[in-house]
């Protein structure tokens, strides 16, 4: 396959969609609740649980309020895009598939230094961990590659392989650009060509200020507590078909998690409180994971 020059940001996504679609993945849309990482999409966290095979790929806009740099840093964003792939059970040739996906977006592994560097992934807020690597391309971490071992505090079987591509970083690499805001978002020949900056710089500026300076901590705290109360209540409710309302409950866990990240970015979480907040979110997530698993196993 020959490519006419480097891919634009959106072409990168389209190529990945094409590649993983050909591998039998469901191409999902981003989840419409604020999350800190693509893993948190229910298409990964919940679907990794239980016995049913599952292959999915999607883009997930991810928010890390603490990473805001007011649009002044060429490499750091508080809102960025992860390309997420989950293959359950992971196929034997998953590494080879991953490398083929890099070739599909114009990274020739015979010209670059691709490395799998130990990184034991864990996300304490969702009680998940796995073993795997950061994937480096010429010293840059372009993906996270993980074999899930636990999700929501529960052992998983079969094991899912998870790939997370940092899309902005990949695009910087593929386009040979140093500043994220200079990335070509769409085709340079387009009559309405836009750079990444033209699409997102203003968001970074406004939200950095909001998240680190302006957000009302008292409101965030109150909302967090509301979400925290809602999760067990929803899990105790029953849907028309007799099931627990796991999916709505999980949405509330995601909201609680984002509110926690906002409070953290405002510097209002003491070191000692931190663990307790994370523990509270993890407990909520565990409850959802357990309820989801019960649903999956009984619905076989």
């Amino acid at each position, binding site marked *: 396959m020959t490519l006419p020059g480097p891919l634009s940001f959106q072409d990168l996504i389209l190529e990945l969609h094409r590649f993983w679609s050909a591998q039998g993945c469901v191409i999902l849309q981003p989840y419409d609740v604020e999350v800190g990482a693509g893993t948190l999409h229910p298409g990964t966290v919940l679907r990794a649980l239980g016995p049913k095979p599952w292959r999915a790929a999607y883009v997930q806009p991810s928010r890390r309020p603490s990473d805001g*740099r007011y649009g*002044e*840093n*060429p*490499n*750091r964003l508080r809102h960025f895009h992860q390309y997420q792939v989950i293959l359950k*059970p*992971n*196929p*034997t040739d998953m*590494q080879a598939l991953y*490398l083929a996906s890099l070739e599909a977006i114009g990274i020739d*592994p*015979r*010209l*670059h*230094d*691709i*490395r*799998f*560097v*130990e990184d*034991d992934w864990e996300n304490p807020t969702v009680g998940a961990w*796995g*073993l*795997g*690597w950061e994937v480096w*391309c*010429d*010293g*840059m971490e372009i993906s996270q590659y993980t*074999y899930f*071992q636990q999700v929501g505090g529960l052992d998983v*079987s*079969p*094991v899912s*392989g998870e790939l997370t591509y940092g899309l902005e970083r990949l695009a*910087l*690499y593929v386009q040979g650009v*140093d500043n994220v805001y200079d990335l070509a978002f769409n085709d340079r020949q387009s009559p309405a060509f836009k750079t990444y900056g033209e699409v997102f710089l203003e968001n970074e500026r406004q939200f950095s200020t909001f998240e680190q300076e302006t957000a009302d901590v008292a409101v965030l705290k109150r909302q967090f507590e509301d979400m925290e109360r809602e999760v067990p209540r929803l899990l105790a409710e029953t849907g028309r078909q007799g099931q627990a309302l796991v999916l709505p409950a999980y949405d509330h866990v995601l909201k609680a998690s984002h509110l926690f990240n906002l409070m953290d970015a405002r*510097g*209002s979480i*003491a*070191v*000692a*409180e931190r663990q307790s907040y994370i523990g509270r979110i993890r407990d909520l997530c565990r409850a959802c994971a357990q309820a989801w698993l019960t649903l999956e196993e009984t619905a076989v």
Partner: protein
Amino acid sequence: MAQFLLELFSEEIPARMQDGAARDLERLARDGLTAAEIPFDTIRTFAGSRRLALVVDGLPTAQPDRLEERKGPRIGAPDAALAGFLRSAGVEREALVEKDGAYFAVIARAGRPTADILSGLTETIVAKFPWPKSMTWGSGKLRWVRPLHSLICVFDRQIVPAAIEGVRVGDISEGHRFMGHGRPFRARDFDEYREALAGHFVVLDVSERKRRIVDKARALCAGRGLEVVEDDGLLDEVAGMVEWPTPILGDMDPRFLNLPPEVVRTSMRTHQRYFAVREVGGGRLAPHFLCVANIETPDGGALISVGNARVLSARLDDARFFWDSDRKTPLEARLETLKGVTFHTQLGTMLQRVERIEALARRIAPLVGADADLAARAGRLAKADLATGLVGEFPELQGVMGGYYAAAQDEPGDVVAAVRDHYKPQGPGDSVPREPVTVAVALADKLDTLTGFFGIGQAPTGSRDPFALRRAALGVIRLIFDNQLRVSISHLARLAGAESPETLLGFFGDRLKVALRDQGKRHDLVDAVFALGDEDLVRVVARIDALSAFLAAEDGANLLAGFKRASNILAAESRKGPLPEGLPKRAASPAEEADLFDALGAARPDIDAALAAEDYSGAMTALAALRAPVDAFFDKVLVNAPEADVRANRLRLLAAVRDEMSKVAEFSLVTG
């Protein structure tokens, strides 16, 4: 003699686990062969990022044949019993031997083929491998450090079958992931294997990989007046990350040389695994870096070099952002942030900790010859860098960055040094501060930690020491020694507000013992001196050294024997009834008793004078004068004399000798 070759081919093994894996593989193979009574000449193991390999040379093709004796019925047992035994043992009546009143069947056991044993051994190795962390994958149950794909398992050039879930076992493996044509290869012995790997761009032996890195790096630097900043830990790690090590000298934007060199090096090392490069002789960092790629590319690494340089720039840009913005806020103003940071729920906020350190540094200052105001100032600023962006990004630069920021706001040099170095010494290899202000703050930092955590009952237990209190105590000890500080631990602990300095003192005693034992000192001597209750560590060590020298000499060893004898007698007598009180009198006879009395009287002022002058060798020499009279006394005088008053005086004399010796050290605790 035949050879066994095993290769375990997997996805990338963490670099830090590879050395241990090579050792574990060797141990498992050695234990398995030994248990099966199979002799061999040599075992070699290799570990790299995608494979572990084992080669055993000099194996027989079968276990040695063995003769096994099996005990049968006693001689004269009924024929039926004997017939049953012959049947079960599978031997004829003629093959039985008579021994110890019973029949024995001698059964020849043919050794099993080695291949069978190796098959089982391979399965055991895979099942029992002690990875620090392992995982399952796919739908299987097999555990390995990362997914295990295939095994080469050949003995004497034949494939040894082994049943391992989901894993192909044979004579096929793969070479480098990207270089060459990427097709699998076959190998039936180690020579073929090594040759195939070399042809497929894999350097099997880690020492060979390291040698290539070092040689190539030198060659790259040599022509340009540069040298690589050596870093063995990094070399170990990098050698475990590549199969075909290819050093590349990259260019760093020179504007980053304005950043503190620690920032540049930390970023290179911890984030990127690059070696720093400096000018030969000058010691200054050069605007380059050395990365070790895992591939040779048609463009000679040009794209890789540019890519790595760009990543480093991005990292350092972020560091520069913090470096610039951090310096806009005075350190003092950071304390407001520390107010919101909890140090420990029971020990208050970081600001409260800072205030304790500040006050403590002021109190310690006069004890270490430091200016109290400077020590307090440094104590106040010491932790401020924890609230800076750069330390948030590079936690390992705490202190170092504080020093830079203190210098940037024109703090006095002593304060700058103290802020920078007050965490020292952090480990056995770390240097010990000598500047008095730094010493004051370094002590205050550690003592606040120790008294705080001991105060809330968080003393270390067993291997659990989550707050690194052992390291803190050892730091205090080294600060005291290396600066020859004349302070008592419990005084320091009281200054730090300890409610029960005794517990802390015991803890310090234990740490001291460990430290002194590491220096090769006997811990019974440490006990013997520590039992005197002296807390002046400088004095304690001087005493231990003198005692050690004394006991090594003949006088000391003999006197110790005399002391033990005296103590034993006194202990035995005290069990019968209370020992006589009061001081001994000079006996007219026998001469040995009078001589000992005189010698004691003569030695006492010498001992006291030497002790007062802290001249412990002098005190030992004075003690040595007792050796001959003590020996003679035990030789000639019967302590348990029939006359009660004679006996009492002799006991008093022995008690006086014991007490005199105990001023110098608690000899009863000396074991040797």
